[in-house]
């Protein structure tokens, strides 16, 4: 693993990332219990590619994204970005690094300041981080807006004058204007309707081709993830259960949870005979996760060992890792 960080093709290496939220705090501020939102997640992303992160709601996908960028503080684990440990560097230096790692948020309605015109939303941080010189500033913002499919005359308009899709374009333009290397997209299309989703996804892929961005694409929509990603990680209750490249995950899902997820993807062909795996019950509370394999309470192939031993994430094919007792754990 150490050699991999030394290699420069991985822009982001996440090792055993943990994020616990204290609950039931006593009057003196001591936590009696923790919600383990992210509980030991490891993965790496190759420069210029897209990694999809999927899982049902509440499984910690969003927390992973935010914790990587240290919008939340890390409880434990390390995040190497371009070989630098983000989880340790001081806040001020982190702030200076922010342009290199941007985030696109889920809700384009609330993530734009309502009292700022679009040009200012996009340009504020460009000025702050001195991305371009003062003379070029306006032309640069106009160019970014055009790149993202926004007409430059929107410069002085306010966010409430735009539709959801256009607002998400503003959010993308905002991130892109800082010339980032890594963009974490936290469900960037799930607040939009389907026809707009396609436009936004295509815009993001075009921008990736042009500028060579690396995406961490967080979504619960498997068909979107399949379209955009090179590698895919599947999360369940704060842990990574399976990780591999797109074809490995879609053609040969090994973890029962991944199999169930894939079987639930709607097919556009009504005559297609679906063989759905219906999961029983709800996702357990992350404050009190099940013992052993966290998925054993809902797994259709559950064995005795599953409730006792935590399965290790092991590589079975090159790049394809699974954490499941169905496969040899040695």
């Amino acid at each position, binding site marked *: 693993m150490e050699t991999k960080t030394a290699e420069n093709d991985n822009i982001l290496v996440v090792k055993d990332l943990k994020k616990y939220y204290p609950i039931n705090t006593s009057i003196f501020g001591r936590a009696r219990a923790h919600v383990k939102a992210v509980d030991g997640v490891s993965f790496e992303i190759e420069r210029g590619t897209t990694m999809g992160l999927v899982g049902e709601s509440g499984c910690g996908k969003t927390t992973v994204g935010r914790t990587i960028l240290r919008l939340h503080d890390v409880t434990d684990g390390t995040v190497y970005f371009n070989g630098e440990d983000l989880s340790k560097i001081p806040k001020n230096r982190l702030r200076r690094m922010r342009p290199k790692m941007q985030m696109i948020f889920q809700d384009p309605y609330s*993530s734009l*300041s309502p009292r700022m015109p679009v040009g200012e939303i996009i340009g504020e941080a460009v000025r702050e*981080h001195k991305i371009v010189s003062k003379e070029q500033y306006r032309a640069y913002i106009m160019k970014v807006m055009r790149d993202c499919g926004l007409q430059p005359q929107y410069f002085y308009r306010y966010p409430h004058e735009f539709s959801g899709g256009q607002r998400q374009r503003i959010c993308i333009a905002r991130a892109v204007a800082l010339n980032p290397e890594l963009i974490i997209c936290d469900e960037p299309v799930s607040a939009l309707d389907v026809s707009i989703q396609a436009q936004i996804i295509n815009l993001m892929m075009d921008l990736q081709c042009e500028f060579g961005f690396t995406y961490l694409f967080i979504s619960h929509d498997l068909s979107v993830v399949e379209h955009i990603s090179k590698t895919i990680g599947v999360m369940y209750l704060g842990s990574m259960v399976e990780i591999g490249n797109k074809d490995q995950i879609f053609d040969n899902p090994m973890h029962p949870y991944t199999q169930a997820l894939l079987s639930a993807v709607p097919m556009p062909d009504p005559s297609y005979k679906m063989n759905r795996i219906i999961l029983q019950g709800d996702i357990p509370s992350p404050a009190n996760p099940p013992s052993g394999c966290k998925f054993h309470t809902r797994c259709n192939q559950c064995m005795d060992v599953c409730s006792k031993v935590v399965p290790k994430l092991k590589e079975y094919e090159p790049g394809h890792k699974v954490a499941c007792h169905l496969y040899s754990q040695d």
Partner: protein
Amino acid sequence: MWKYIGKRLLLAIVILIGVSIMIYALSMLMPTDYIDRQTAPAVANGTMTLDDVTRLKEIYGLADKSFFGIVKSYSTWLVGAFTGDLGYSFLFGRPVSTVINEYMWTSFILAFIAFILETGISIPMGIRAAVNQYGGYDYTVSVLAMIGTALPSFFLAALLMNVFCIQLGWLPLQGLTSATKIFAADAHMEIFLDKAWHLILPITVLVLLGVGGLMRYTRTNMLEVMNSDYIRTARAKGLPEHTVVYKHAFRNTLIPLVTMLSGSLPGLFGGAMITETVFAVPGIGYIALRATMQGDIPFIMGYNMFLAILTVIGMLISDLMYMVVDPRVKLK
């Protein structure tokens, strides 16, 4: 925009007439009136007969307390009010508008200085408390604010008077000018300093009482904004924390703040009844309390209409200010 203001002003007239009807009816239906109060001792020792009292009441227009009598005297008042004549104050024997104008400015100066101090202190405090939510600063300031809000003004005033005027003897007890000093007519500086010296305690009381509420209000609104998604976006942009707090968060907090502050217009001119009374500052609040106790109906009407007009204007201003601070609002 002008059409909107015009519409609001027309509406305001309707509101003001409604308010005047209610106040007039209430003051007329009080069990005793000005004449009863003034003549009671004379009637008791036999220097006046009840006939004299009735005759006096007729002169003052207080004799007929039946429904139609009230309607009749109200309409006389209303016609006068429309022509700008609010009548003569029973108590002062001068036109109500003159009395209001005379005492209003003392109150205004007192309230205005207190208002400036209050805003200047409580808004930065609220911002800081919100940024360090549940921190030491937040708790300290919140507890002090609660104490300030919970203290009755007369109690706090009496407490401060006891400490600073009686025990320490640093500040004057009451009034606006020193009774024992005689100033030359052109000693403007000394007169000013003397007044300022007298105003220190009343202003302190007003500020201490007002800071808490405004600080909590700022804190609450600031917290709401600080937890919103676009603040997270601003942080993710890598903006420095003071830009996040003051440019992104505080500017959005301004919307409710400006609305609330421009609604405080009646408070600026209307006087602080209790504080002024305790300190015997000859302001409009002090005068209004005296007039109300005496049943001085023309003054009660004039004063309350004055407050009502200020309230209506204050609300109109706060709606217009909305448009200034919030680019999303376009009034039609």
